[in-house]
Structure formats: C-alpha cells, structure tokens
C-alpha cells in the first residue's frame, strides 16, 4: 500500500542551527503517527514545512503520489491536507457553524461568490461535521467566546471539512485538561479510522501518544533518532537518553 505522505531527507536550517536535519518517514491511510521529541527538537518546524507554511532547504514532501514541496499552504490544502494549530486559529467573529461553513464554501470553490447568503450554504454538511465532534449543540455560539477545549474540537471539524486524506495536528491537546486530551485524541482516532484519514501529530503528553498512535517518530535536535511502535520506542536507549528516563509515563511536560 502506498503511503499517503512520504517525507524524504527533509532539512531546514536557521542560521547555523539545523532545526530539521535529513528527516524521512511516511504515513499510511487510517493510521495515527505521533511525532515526539523534547522542546526545540524541530517538531513544529518539520510540521510547517509539510503544509508549506515554511519553505524547506532540502528534501522532498510527497503527498498522494505528487511532490508538494514549495506549494503554498492553501494549495496544499486544496490537494487534501487538513491542519490544526498549536494555538487554535478560528474565526472569532463567526459562529461555530459558520466556521465550518467557511471551510466548506472554500472547498466547494464558492469563495468569490458575491451574491446569496453564506449562512444558508452547506448547513446540513456543517451540522453533520459538528455532530461528529460533539459541537452541534453549540453551533450558534460565537467562536470568540468558546472554552479552549471546544475550540480545539471546532478546529478539528474545520480541518476535516474538505475531506482530507491527511490531517496534520500540531500539539492538538496543548492547553487542555488531562481527561479532555485523551477524549479528543480518541475522537480523532475514531474519525481517522472511519474516514481513512492519515494523521500526523506532534504531542508532549506521553499518555496521549502511547494510547492513540499506531507508530511514533522521535526527533531530537532536528534528527530522527527512533521510529516504531510504542513499546519499541519506549525501550529504545537513545530515546531514554533524550528524555532522561522521565516523562515516559507521567504525562507531564
């Protein structure tokens, strides 16, 4: 089975620092791949290169059999890559439903339409997405006043609105209460399996990582130092050295 996303020898330097150095991996449909590593390991840099937020210096990103290196974020999105951010980014002046409708409008290529109410478009589809993430009962509320955990779920609904084949989630549970974190990732895993979406996510919470990833990549100082299933990574001496034997089960930062 060909992977949805294939990353080959990706590299990026800031000044003399190699933030991401010769990183290669791949993600398959319906699987959750966790990208972990200590602070400053290059996780977010790596992420931002995948969806075109940041140009890469070296290497290649292949999505669905086609090279997407050098494309803009919105072009990458059009090909079927959804994304959530470490700090949630939603449209504060719109309701929860309108946020999802906006993504659906863009997906349908109706952005330039000057007539007809945006509010009346794709309502059923938006509500179905909101139901899936458990936000339907708050559909009318403004995004600007939501609790943080709810915002994360809205973002998830927005990110899967264009029926992506790949979902990139940068620290999806950052800033959430421990119980909510597991619940959000359980939901993500469910959606990913149901829709056959490949998910790549970065995460600090090891409970989340070990509970919900099919495979784990460990990044340290820009280099990929280990990859494999949870037990393999947990027992890897190089990984233990990086984490100094701590954090593997505590779930703290």
């Amino acid at each position, binding site marked *: 089975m060909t992977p949805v996303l294939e990353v080959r020898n990706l590299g990026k330097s800031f000044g003399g620092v190699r933030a991401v150095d010769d990183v290669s991996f791949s993600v398959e449909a319906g699987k959750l791949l966790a990208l972990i590593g200590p602070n400053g390991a290059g996780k977010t840099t790596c992420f931002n290169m995948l*969806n075109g937020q940041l140009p890469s210096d070296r290497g290649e990103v292949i999505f669905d059999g086609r090279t997407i290196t050098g494309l*803009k*974020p*919105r072009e990458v*999105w*059009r090909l079927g890559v959804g*994304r959530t*951010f470490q700090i949630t*980014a*939603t*449209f*504060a*002046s*719109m*309701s929860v439903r*309108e946020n999802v*409708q*906006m*993504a659906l*409008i*863009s*997906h349908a290529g*109706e*952005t*330039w*339409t*000057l*007539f*007809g*109410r*945006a*509010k009346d*478009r794709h309502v059923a589809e938006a509500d179905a997405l909101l139901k899936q993430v*458990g936000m339907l*009962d*708050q559909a009318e*509320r*403004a995004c*600007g*006043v939501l*609790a943080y*955990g*709810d915002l994360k*779920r809205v973002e998830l609904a*927005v990110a899967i*609105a*264009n029926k992506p084949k790949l979902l990139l989630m940068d620290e999806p549970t950052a800033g959430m209460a421990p*119980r*909510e974190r597991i*619940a*959000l990732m*359980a*939901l993500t895993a469910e959606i990913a399996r149901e829709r056959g979406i490949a998910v790549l996510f970065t995460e600090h919470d090891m409970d989340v990582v070990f509970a919900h990833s099919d495979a784990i990549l460990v990044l340290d100082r820009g280099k990929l130092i280990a990859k494999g299933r949870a037990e393999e990574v947990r027992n890897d001496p190089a990984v233990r050295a990086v984490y100094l034997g701590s954090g593997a089960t505590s779930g703290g930062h």
Partner: protein
Amino acid sequence: MIDLIFAQTLNGLASASSLFLVACGLSIIFGVTRIVNFAHGSFYMLGAYLAFTLVTRFGPADVFGFWGGVLVAALIVAALGAIVEIVILRRIYQAPELFQLLATFGLVLMVQDIALGIWGPEDKLGPRAPGFKSFVVLMGSRFPTYELFLIVVGPIMLGLLWFLFQKTRWGTLVRAATQDREMVGALGVNQRLLFTSVFAFGAGLAALGGALQLPREAVNLHMDLSMISEAFVVVVVGGLGSVTGAYLAAVLIGIIHAFGILVFPKITLVLVFLVMAVVLVIKPYGLMGERPVGSAHAHGPVEPLLLPASFNIKLIGLAALAVLLLAPFVVADHWLLTLTELSIFALFAASLHFMMGPGGMASFGHAAYFGLGAYGAALAVKWLGMPMLPALAFAPFLAGIAGFVFGWFCVRLSGVYLAMLTLAFAQIAWATAFQWVDVTGGDNGILGIWPAPWASSKLVYYYLALAICVAAILALRVVIFAPFGYALRAGRDSPLRAEAIGLPVMRIQWIAFIIAAFAAGIAGALFAFFKGSVFPTYMAIPRSVDGLLMVLLGGVQTVSGPIVGAFAFMGLQEQLVKATMYWRFVLGASIVLLVILFPRGLVGTALAFAERRREAEPAPPVTAAPELAR
C-alpha cells in the same frame, strides 16, 4: 551644477531637522502608548504660534528673548501634552486603535479653532534669530546661517536623544515599554507616569520643531495637517518606534523634497509619497523598524457575530427609506440639498466600512477614491464631452483602477502601516490633482459639471442620487453576507486559518479594496454633478477623516453603522456650521466626548445595550461543555 547639488543638499538637511523632531516625538509616543497621534501636527503648530507670541513679547532682537521664547513655547506645549494625556487619552487606552485616532483628530479640530481664536486667520511672520541673520557664501551660493544652524541641530538632537534613551533610567523604561509594555507594567513600573511623561516629551519635541521653524517660514493655520502627513511618512519610512530611523527618513525626505523641486517641480509631493511606497514594499516595517509583536487585534473587544438584520431593524430601515422618499413633499426646498449630500456621504461611509469592517483594513485615505470618482466624472465631461449618465458610469472605473493599483501595495501590509500607506496614496492622488494644472485645473478645479437637463432640478437629482446610493449600499450589504464577505472576514479574523482552508487572503483583500474604491467612486461622481465642480480638496485628508468619523461613529462592527454615522456626523457638522463660527472646536470636542462615552460607536453601543438587556432576562443556562465520552 555641483554647487547647485550642494546647495540643495544643505536645504534638504536644514528642513530635515524640524521634521525629525516632530516625527521622533510621534514615533516615541506610538512606541510606548500605541496611539497614533494625529494631533502631533497640532502640537507643532502650537509650538510655532506660541514661540511667535513669546519671542515678540520677550524681544526678538535679544538672544535670551528669542531662544528663551522658543524654549518656553516648547515647555508650555509639553505641559499641554501632559494635560491632554491625563484628561483624554488615559481614558481610552483600552479602546480600539482607530477610536484613539479619532479622539486625537478631535483634538486637531479643537486646536485649529483655538489657534484661529487666539492668533486670527492671517499668517504670522516670525523674526529672524539673533546671531543667525546673515549669509555665508558656500561654493558660490549664498546660504543663510540659520539654515546651517538647523542642519547642526538635527544630529545634535539625535545624539542627545540617543544619550537619553541609552543612558538614563527613563530612557531605558521607554525602550522597554516600546518592546513590551505589559512586561514593563508587570515589573512594577508606574505606567501612568511613564505614559504621561512620554506624551509630554513627544509633544514638547514637536513644539520645538515648530518653534525652530519660526525664522524660516510664516506661521499659519495649515501647518498642522501638512506636517502630520509628512511626519507620518517619516515615521513609517524610518520604522515606528525607531529614533535613528526617524532621522534617516527625515533626511531622506528632506533631500528628496529639495531635489524634487529642481528636477520635477510639478510632482515633488508625488515623489515623496512614491519613495515611501517603495520603501514600504521593500521593507514593510520601515528602514529601521521591526515586525510588530502581536496582531493588530491585540486589544479591543472581541469582534461580535455579524448577524443579518432582525425583523425590527429591517422595519426601521424601510421606515427610514420611506421618510427619505417622502421627504421632498414635506420639507423646504433647501433641505433637498442636505438630503442629497447625506445620501452621497452615506454611500461614501458604507464603502469605507466595507474595507474597514469586514476587511479589517483601516484606510486613512479613502477620500482619494471619492475624489477620483469626482474627477473621473468631471474629466469625462470636460475632455471626452460625455453627457451625465455615461460620465456617472465611467467615473467609478477611474476610482476602481486606482484601487487596483494602490490596493496591490496596501494589502501587503496590515494595521497602522497599511493605514499610513493608504494616506500616502491619497496624498499622491491629491498632489496630482493639485499640481497637474493642465488637465485638472489645479487649485481652481474644474467647473461647470452640471447634471443633464432632465435631472437638473433639485428634486430629480435628489431621487437619482438616492436611488443610486441606496442600490450601491444594498449591493455592498449583499456582498458582506455572501461567501465573499465571509471569506473577507475570515482573512481578518485569522489569516493563518484562512490560508489553511484554502483562502487566498491577500487576493481577497485586494478585490475588497477595489470594490470599496469603486463604490466610493460612485459617491464621488454623484457629488461632482451635485456641486457642479470638482476641487483637489475632495481628496484631502479632512475628507478622508470625515469618512473615518462616520464609520467609527456608527460603529465599525455593524453593517448599518456607517449609514447612521454618516447622518449623525453630517447632521452635527451642518448644524454646528450654522450655529457658531467655531464649529470645529465644538465638533472636535463632541468627537472626543463621544469616543470616551461610546468606545464602540453609536450602533455598536446600542447593540451592546440590547444584548445586555437580553442577557439580563432569565435565559436558559448555557450547557457546560459536554464530555467527549461518546
């Protein structure tokens, strides 16, 4: 040739000094308080007027009389600045940026009338500075020693300021606050004192700049706005908050001025603003500036939901329209003129709101597109011999094309930088109309732009204007609630998210800019036929500010706000002009008061009030976020 270049370089450097002092104060004030102080030009003007009075009283021939007068003038204005900060600005630091700007423009109006009341409308010619009355001959040309003195003042002040900011505790605090004022507050620094002292210091610098101009040029009532637009250019080119950048930019602008007069005497003003546009495109945050930390929406209330008009609001709208339609049968004839003007300005305000509200792009220069619409109509009549209707149809395209060109540059910036670039482009448009006498008639404008015979009666023209304006306003409204309007708001709320769901934010903003320019052009064209003539003042800063006032008065977050704002503003202005000679003062004071009392605008405040009443009623409790256990 070489001596000419030399002389012009010296000229440029001499004029750079005052510009530097003013811009530097503006820059420091912005850095610390985050207030774009439109009234800075007024402090400059007050400095010059006060110095004139004091020097005349102390004895202009006496060394102490002259320099004492200059210094005391600067100190008095610094004290005035402190009072302004304590009485007005302190109350509005939490308000959105544009409201602060509005309040400072209210001050501009007040100071204009205060100066008119005290010093009268005639220009005041200052005395020469004692000890600097002679000429020196440099490379074959005579050069006033006072100019040389000014050339030296610039670098000396730069050095003193450098010392102040690097080596004193106060200066360190100012620099720290410029970088992160929350952190400075958290460290226990007395912010109130810091803000007041910074504002007073900046005002004093501006006044010193004005006072030093006394021997060079006559003091007049137009000094404030002409200086503020140049100071904006200097600050933006130099980089907001950077003193060295302000000096470099002041020298650059001063020299461009001096050489521009030699090489392109007709387009010196255009040249200055072109340089600014070029710098901003290459270095968006100015020569020495850095990307501002935090987003443009860092403070101010969260944007509320944009809801389509409720049944009641629609009813009110229809009733208002009915009143406008039936008005001619009831009111006296001259009221028709007022109503026509109101309709036109409602469209102007709505077009500005379109880019400011949903687009999040504040324009300081929207009058450019209004004026280009007016000139488009006038030029079509005068040079192409078009009748009224084709001219009305042609004119908005001129504005739209300008929006196409200027907008391309503007959407690359955001926040204050974008606003200042729009101001620069408006000044280019104004300068073109003003200086390109062969085509536009310059200051004399173009006369005899009358409506077609069938529309020449007040009544018919009123209905024509009303119909076009209502149609255009409704069209803008439809677009705001259509997918394009939503995409525009999406780009304003979160450019990051918008790009991540496939929205080309810049291109969307560009199209919105063009639409807004086009709509303003329609208003301008109607205005040209209404007045029968066009003048460069149609594009001048006060007209742009009128538009801002209307939009902000009504409330930028609401769609109906700008229309209410236009009526409120035009009504207020008209009544004031009739009631008192000092209407500017009263208008300015009302603006300041309105900003302090209604920081969300008239309609915004009304909506917030309605919201609060609804929430006060026993509402079903909002269900707590359900657990995700499914």
